[in-house]
């Protein structure tokens, strides 16, 4: 151990106000560094591939079932396979949120983070900013598989591509409340298994809710099961507005929760 003057003492000024800056800023890059060796990235790739394989396998096995349907190719595929694909997406979100906070809690790193010049809420928002590109990647894999199915078994056109892009964008928007709620639960529960359990129960509850009831479909874990294709304009607006409001509400809930937790410590 060295106790003498350090050779690198001229690298940055001691006690200069610029030497330890810190601050409130969001740092999704830092969150990306933290997930090293957690298996989160492979989980997103594997889950994306698994979900993408679903429509391909379905079409390979029973394409004749769908060939005579009058709807657009994207609508046919989504109505046939999206329930399973979205179930995998939501399950992935719950697991990802648990892993993200488990790395913070398991070896007490969160305590260190809280004693650094950083807002605890920025950790949460950085994590959601990290989750979004990973979700986009997963949805892109799924879109590629759906596009392939259109091209190979049905009919592929520029309109189908646009419809697919809109559907994936809509799904991303509807996945946001589930992602935020999963992160909020993971942040609130120090034991990863509790937040994972609550998440899984919420997913299964969502699958049991009647799909034709608009209000019940607004449950954050039920929304990702909605399909844009064939949906009426006002329903699309309703779901989009609800997803945006739920997201904002969950962000506000997280900030309030963190404040209460800090002040009651």
């Amino acid at each position, binding site marked *: *151990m060295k106790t003498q003057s350090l050779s690198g003492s001229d690298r940055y000024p001691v006690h200069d106000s610029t030497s330890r800056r810190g601050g409130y800023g969001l740092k999704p890059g830092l969150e990306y560094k933290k997930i090293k060796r957690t298996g989160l990235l492979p989980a997103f790739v594997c889950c994306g591939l698994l979900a993408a394989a679903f429509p391909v396998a379905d079409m390979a096995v029973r394409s004749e079932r769908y060939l005579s349907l009058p709807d657009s190719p994207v609508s046919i595929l989504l109505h046939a396979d999206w329930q399973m694909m979205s179930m995998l997406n939501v399950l992935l979100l719950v697991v990802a949120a648990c892993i993200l906070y488990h790395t913070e809690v398991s070896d007490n790193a969160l*305590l260190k983070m809280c004693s650094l010049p950083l807002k605890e809420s920025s950790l949460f928002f950085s994590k959601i900013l990290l989750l979004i590109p990973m979700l986009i990647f997963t949805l892109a894999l799924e879109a590629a598989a759906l596009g392939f199915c259109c091209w190979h078994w049905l009919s592929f056109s520029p309109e189908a591509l646009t419809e697919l892009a809109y559907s994936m964008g809509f799904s991303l928007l509807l996945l946001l409340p589930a992602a935020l709620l999963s992160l909020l639960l993971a942040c609130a529960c120090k034991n990863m298994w509790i937040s994972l359990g609550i998440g899984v129960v919420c997913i299964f509850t969502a699958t049991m809710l009647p799909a034709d009831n608009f209000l019940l479909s607004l449950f954050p874990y039920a929304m990702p099961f909605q399909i844009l294709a064939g949906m009426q304009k006002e329903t699309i607006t309703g779901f989009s507005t609800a997803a945006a409001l739920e997201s904002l509400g969950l962000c506000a809930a997280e900030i309030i929760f963190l404040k209460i937790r800090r002040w009651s410590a």
Partner: protein
Amino acid sequence: MYIIETKQLTKSYGNFAAVSGVDLHIPKGAVYGFLGPNGAGKSTTMKMFLGLAKPTGGSFTIDGKKYPENRVEILKEVGSFIEAPAFYGNLTGKENLEIVGRILGLPKSAALEALELVGLTPYKDRLARKYSLGMKQRLGLASALIGRPPILILDEPTNGLDPVGIHEIRTLIRSLPKQFDCTVLVSSHLLSEVELMADHIGILNHGHLLFEGTLEQLKAHAENQGYPTDNLEDTFLAVIDADNRQRGGIR
């Protein structure tokens, strides 16, 4: 000039006062030893300085900055090690310090420098969860020292270290005010260690500050009260025992 000053600092949990009306005065450039039995309120006081616990009464300033208005500004100046080593087990020692360094806006070299300071350079690429207890403790210290903060708050920094490690950490802490022009607030159960590294002492019992001053002042105070003055341990035990008896035998 006091770099950390508290006025009637209090922290209560329901009816239980963990810290009760404490007035601390920590001079700039000092190594301030914070002593007290388990549950005396040392860690709670340190947690309040870091914004990890909210004071229920009183106030404190760190380097002239008031809490809670300047919480982030205060944390920019404080390196801390509280309770137990805190790290990301899935990352290496170097990666852990790089994360802390990035949050503090430090250059990448700061992580290597901190690792060198605590003697972890040979193990910098090993996963933190595979570190021994002593190595985890050193990693925690490195994350407190990174960026050479002007104020260091160390809660039981020698826990889990072997005698050689304790000696090394003690020498390091003792050298910090001269080396980095910083102030160190250190709590420890090892009274002999505190005697060797601290020049100011604060004794806390049941949330109350029983004594504050230099080691010489403590000796003079102990002689006045008729307490033993052979070593800090005997004096400390006598001060605590007298306070406990005054409180009706509460231990």
